[in-house]
């Protein structure tokens, strides 16, 4: 375990309407075993003691499963490690003397709340349009009573890994939510339980996504690279297919 010192340039903004700017802080001694959020905790304790407002950031589980954390570190959402949430990013990946620029997720659809916190409730609004199964699917089925090929089950589970963190939107130069919506649509479209509402779901979730001000996908793949759960853009292609089938081949409008 080593001790490193970092220069932190952090976005400070008191509220949604106020004008924000970067403020530079010295991290003080940081052990490389700390997580990124623990490093921010250390900074905040010092800020509190000195009477300054602590840096507001989102977090909850701190084990990479809830999707609450996330900021943009030197231009990359969730920082430089692949398939890693910010809470699971450890300080051993940085060198003594590094300068880290820490910014909030930026997109029109996610309004800034304070400092590094953005409002990601537009994702909830998209889920509310159909990211669930509302028909009665009965009690717990016997194992293997509904045959699902292993490969299909794996694909559905891979899509279900999405934790709704919003890094895909933050990474996208167009502020598009296609990777998130693609993951949610895929997860249900691949499984038998998702079939009854399949067409309705695709149309409704895309409609909501457009209303909320997310941009259009340009197939630039920044989302896939930023996603802490490794959600593949093949899910975006599946969303494109699902939407096409629902729009042109189903009776739903």
């Amino acid at each position: 375990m080593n001790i490193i010192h970092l220069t932190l340039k952090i976005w400070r903004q008191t509220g949604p309407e106020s004008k924000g700017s970067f403020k530079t802080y010295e991290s003080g001694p940081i052990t490389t075993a700390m997580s990124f959020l623990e490093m921010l905790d250390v900074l905040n304790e010092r800020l509190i003691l000195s009477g300054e407002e602590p840096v507001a950031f989102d977090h909850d589980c701190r084990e990479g499963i809830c999707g609450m954390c996330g900021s943009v570190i030197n231009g990359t959402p969730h920082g430089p490690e692949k398939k890693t949430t910010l809470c699971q990013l450890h300080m051993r990946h940085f060198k003594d003397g590094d300068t880290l620029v820490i910014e909030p997720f930026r997109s029109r659809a996610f309004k800034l709340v304070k400092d590094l916190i953005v409002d990601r409730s537009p994702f909830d609004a998209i889920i509310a349009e159909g990211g669930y199964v509302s028909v009665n699917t009965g009690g717990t089925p016997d194992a293997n009573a509904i045959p699902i090929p292993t490969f299909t089950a794996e694909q559905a589970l891979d899509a279900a890994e999405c934790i709704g963190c919003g890094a895909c939107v933050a990474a996208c130069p167009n502020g598009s939510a296609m990777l998130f919506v693609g993951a949610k649509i895929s997860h249900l479209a691949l499984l038998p339980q998702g079939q009854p509402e399949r067409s309705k779901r695709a149309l409704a979730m895309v409609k909501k996504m457009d209303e909320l001000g997310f941009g259009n996908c340009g197939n630039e793949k920044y989302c896939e690279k930023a996603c802490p759960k490794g959600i593949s853009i093949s899910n975006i292609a599946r969303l494109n297919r699902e939407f096409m089938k629902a729009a042109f081949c189903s009776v739903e409008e």
Partner: protein
Amino acid sequence: MSWILTVLSSSIGKKYIMAVSGACLSFFLLAHLIGNSVSFWGKEAYNSYASHLHSLGFLIYILEILLLLLFLVHIVMGITLFIENLSARPNRYAVKEKERNWSASTMPYTGILILLFLVVHLVNFHFITKTVSTAELVKTTLSNPLIASFYLLSLSGLTLHASHGFWSLFQSLGINHQKYNKLLQLGGLAMAVIIGTTFILIPLLIVTTDSFLQ
């Protein structure tokens, strides 16, 4: 039938329009390339190709109108997407992502370069009262170093545009399959490079050699 408008004006619907018009333009590009490649076989062959093309008469007129419509759809939709996407991400990051996807990120800009090229190109060869043979016209026009450099620049832009576009159009239409992804990705890139460099060869040979189309 109002549902069609709803579908096509959605974010995904606009991408379908972009992809289908882009695919049709790609077929035109391929046809145009094959036609112009006849110039590698010399002046007589090229002039004979040109006169055969013009002998199609009325058919060529209809094809031209269709092509114009395709370009309009692709360009108007491309510019719409560009403006919508700018406003969907109003604030940029202070630090830029290090590994950039250049061909994809420059689509609107290479697109506009192609549009400029289109205007110059049509003024050069379409809206002109012809007094000499097609081969002579091409030779004299592209012997101008300024015009030739502009052609080289825009055709490089076209190569970049197509190197993302050829793959992207499949993804936008939902065509993504683990058995074919490599083929689509590499095939798209190869097609773009082959089409681009072959086109580029024409102005390049005209400015660097005396014998081409002589």
